[in-house]
């Protein structure tokens, strides 16, 4: 008779199982792209070995904004008000500069009601990962167009969008985000590599993920459907992420791959596909987005990366310990300070 012993449970580099990175049961529709994105977040934080309690999750309002409840239960979460997660996240990161921020928003939450806070977050280059789960419609209010809907896109009701879409990646590149990427919720490998790069990046990472709404925007005539994306997705590069803690040596074929070292020492390998694409060239990034859009394609991958620009907290010259938990001896000036001020006012 043979005895069986349970195989040792698989853990990451800090000894946690993947279960420690899971969240509550999703209440989104079966097949919703957002659920796939939550899965990628769980995998990437697990594989990167980030302590889940060092993470703070933020969101606004909408289907997308529910999703922080569906990953990383061991992280504090803040589901705030519509379009205003950036200010909540900014405040939290000001209070504790060591928090690892991740915001999940949607196209309505970011590009319509939240466009003001989105743009100013870009200017500040707040260090966090900001994911836009982009499906071109408002889901929770049952299928109205959002501001990212493409010209000519059709609703289920037959209504056609005539208004210029807001491209959040164009905004992000122009206004100061330092890692800008677009992906597709159906492209597991690409999204994983982008997410890991964003986790390693010290700055604001904007990831616009086309994430089809199976209930209101997955029909013929939609430009944010699974079928449309499968046909029009144009990856700019094949991505490989090599974490800093990995001892795997990666063989790089000469001339075919760009390599970018991220802040934590991780390496991002960008293998050339159709065109030779330099993601550190801002003008080229914008031109590529305009050109591919005009050609009816959706360019995905790492669109722009700037590892040199300082993020907001660095500009503020803050003490290292979190502002929120400094002792009274650091935050209340001594009696002599008040005496001095009073004397000046006499």
């Amino acid at each position, binding site marked *: 008779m043979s005895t069986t012993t349970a195989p040792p449970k698989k853990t990451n580099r800090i000894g946690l199982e993947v279960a420690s990175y899971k969240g509550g049961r999703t209440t989104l529709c079966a097949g919703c792209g957002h659920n796939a994105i939550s899965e990628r977040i769980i995998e990437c934080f697990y594989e990167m070995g980030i302590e889940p309690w*060092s993470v703070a999750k933020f969101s606004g309002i909408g289907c997308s904004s529910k999703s922080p409840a569906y990953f990383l239960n061991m992280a*504090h979460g803040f589901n705030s008000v519509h379009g205003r997660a*950036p200010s909540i996240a900014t405040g939290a990161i000001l209070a504790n500069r060591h928090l690892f921020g991740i915001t999940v928003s949607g196209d309505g939450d970011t590009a319509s009601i939240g466009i003001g*806070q989105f743009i*100013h977050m870009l200017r500040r280059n707040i260090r966090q990962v900001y994911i836009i789960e982009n499906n071109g419609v408002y889901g929770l209010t049952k299928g109205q167009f959002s501001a990212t809907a493409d010209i000519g896109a059709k609703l289920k009701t037959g209504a056609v969008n005539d208004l210029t879409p807001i491209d959040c990646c164009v905004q992000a590149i122009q206004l100061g985000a330092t890692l800008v990427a677009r992906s597709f919720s159906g492209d597991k490998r690409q999204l994983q590599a982008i997410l890991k790069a964003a986790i390693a990046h010290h700055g604001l990472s904007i990831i616009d993920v086309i994430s089809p709404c199976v209930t209101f925007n997955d029909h013929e005539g939609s430009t944010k459907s699974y079928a449309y994306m499968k046909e029009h997705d144009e990856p700019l590069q094949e991505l490989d992420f090599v974490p800093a803690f990995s001892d795997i040596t990666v063989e790089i074929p000469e001339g075919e791959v760009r390599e970018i070292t991220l802040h934590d020492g991780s390496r991002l390998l960008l293998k050339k596909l159709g065109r030779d694409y330099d993601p550190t060239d801002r003008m080229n990034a914008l031109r590529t987005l305009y050109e591919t859009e005009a050609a009816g394609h959706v360019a995905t991958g790492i669109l722009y990366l700037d590892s040199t620009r300082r993020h907001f907290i660095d500009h503020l010259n803050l003490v290292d310990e979190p502002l929120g938990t400094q002792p009274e001896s650091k935050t209340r000036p001594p009696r002599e300070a008040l005496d001095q001020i009073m004397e000046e006012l006499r």
Partner: protein
Amino acid sequence: MPTAEVSPISPPSAKAQQSAINDFTIQVATVNGSGSQTANTVLMRALFQMGIPVSGKNLFPSNIAGLPTWFTSRASKRGYIGRKKEIDFLVAMNAETAQEDVLKLDPGAAVVYDEPLKLNALRSDLNFYPVPFDKLVGPVCPEPRLRKLVRNMIYDGVLARLLGIEMDEVRKALLKQFGARKAKAADLNWGAVEAGYDFAERNLPKTDPFSVRRMNATAGKIIIDGNAACALGAMFAGVTVVTWYPITPSSSLVESLIGYLKRFRIDKETGKATYAVVQGEDELASIGMVLGAAWAGARSMTATSGPGISLMSEFTGLGYYADIPAVVVDVQRVGPSTGLPTRTMQGDLVSTALLSHGDTKHPMFFPSSPRECYSMMIDAFDLAERFQTPVFVMSDLDLGMNNWMSDAFPYPEKPIERGKVLSAEDLARMGGFARYRDVDGDGVGYRTLPGTNHPAAAYFTRGSGHNDRAGYSEREDDYMNNMDRLARKFESIRGHLPAPHLDLNSRAHVGVVCAGTSRYATEESRDQLREEYGFETSYLRLKAYPFGEDLIDFVRRHERVYVIDQNRDAQLLLLMRLEFEPELIAKLRSVRYYGGLPLDARTVTDEIVRQEGL
């Protein structure tokens, strides 16, 4: 000869003569942007240094340069520092308003005016003092482009001579104003003061009854505006995150705070800031950052005015419903909408008390002086963190932007109170916690901060329905339990607010209730009612909302209670109606002023006299 232009006046009444020493109001009428502020501040400070109780009020337009502006300094031996309606001494520098300003004066008032305006032709019952400002400024200020600014210092010299303000004190005040670094500018301006004094001495024989005499009523006191006082309160409360969006009349609060923080809150060992100040893109972002920061453990605040309060409505409801501390200073101005942005009002009382949708209510402090601005900011931070809720400090433009004589501020003796925050060690001992469970019966749950190094630390904050473990819930019992807990919390807060100032008068059947800066007019009005009408009153000044038993007792004790409001709709009275029994409501009477100027005693007195039929 200028002396020839002095008009004959009616002999001042005996009463006027009596009260003319250290009891008058000077009004300087100039053009916005002409640099008169320095001259006015020096004037006020010189009186203060002579030990005379003094107040200064700047009445300015919403404009950078070109529109009329008035600065009023009141000297009062009895210590009245509210606005006085009557102007005793006018300095007419603005051609545009001079005629109207002169026509409004009571007989017997004095007018220093720019000679070419020829104001003496307007009336024969005033004391006129023509001064050729342009002629005088030339010799003392060779640089033509500086003359516009230096010119105003001349009237300080003229007034010093006419009123008997000691020149040593004027010089001291001027040096204080310019500071050691601007010695050259101080010299230039001092030349102008002396020119004015000399001119008056040689050419202007005194005909009016107003003068000053050294007193000893300002020893140990300071001069400060309410916004700077709030800033000091915030700094000594240990504020760590400040966000703001510029709006008159609150901008100078954060600007003062930035100045103080740079001096006193840089960590000596590292040279790094123990605070962050962020100018938001709007008030929505400012309050959002405040809530995010407080959620993550910071003592965070913002300062704004009515329009900003309106914009903060949604987020304030989230702060209330998700139990997040915040301190918001509302330096109230005249609304609605843009309203009169540079005039004062207490018009946000009701909207702030109930700010946001659903069932929401928020504690408010009502500072009436710089000293209370300072201490109430400290109290507000402790209250916000203890009770995990947004707290409002209701200042106003009069308090915030004007200079006030004030007692010096005491160093806070109570340690900073951070409220119910669980550490990783607490969690290791307890195993876990339920975020919104009312363990202590005061309606306040225990919280953890994001980043707390323990697997059981996390919880999920949301503005949607939640149960006591912070889980999403649309159940009616969960919703109602939570709302009842929040109501319980509000009741707990009631017992932790400063008690009202109370002056019970056993001979009075009538009481007067006010809050904030209404106190100055109200207190002076009580004296007027007693001295002029033999009418006694009791007095209660509210310091915070929600109100307590003291107020109910006070109303119960009196036949009628006048509630003084600086708004059209009797908002302070309305808040009392929300909580009072009908028989108490029936006792309330309303005195309201909403013209945008600081409330004056005569307005209060006249209205009470009218309603009482005295």
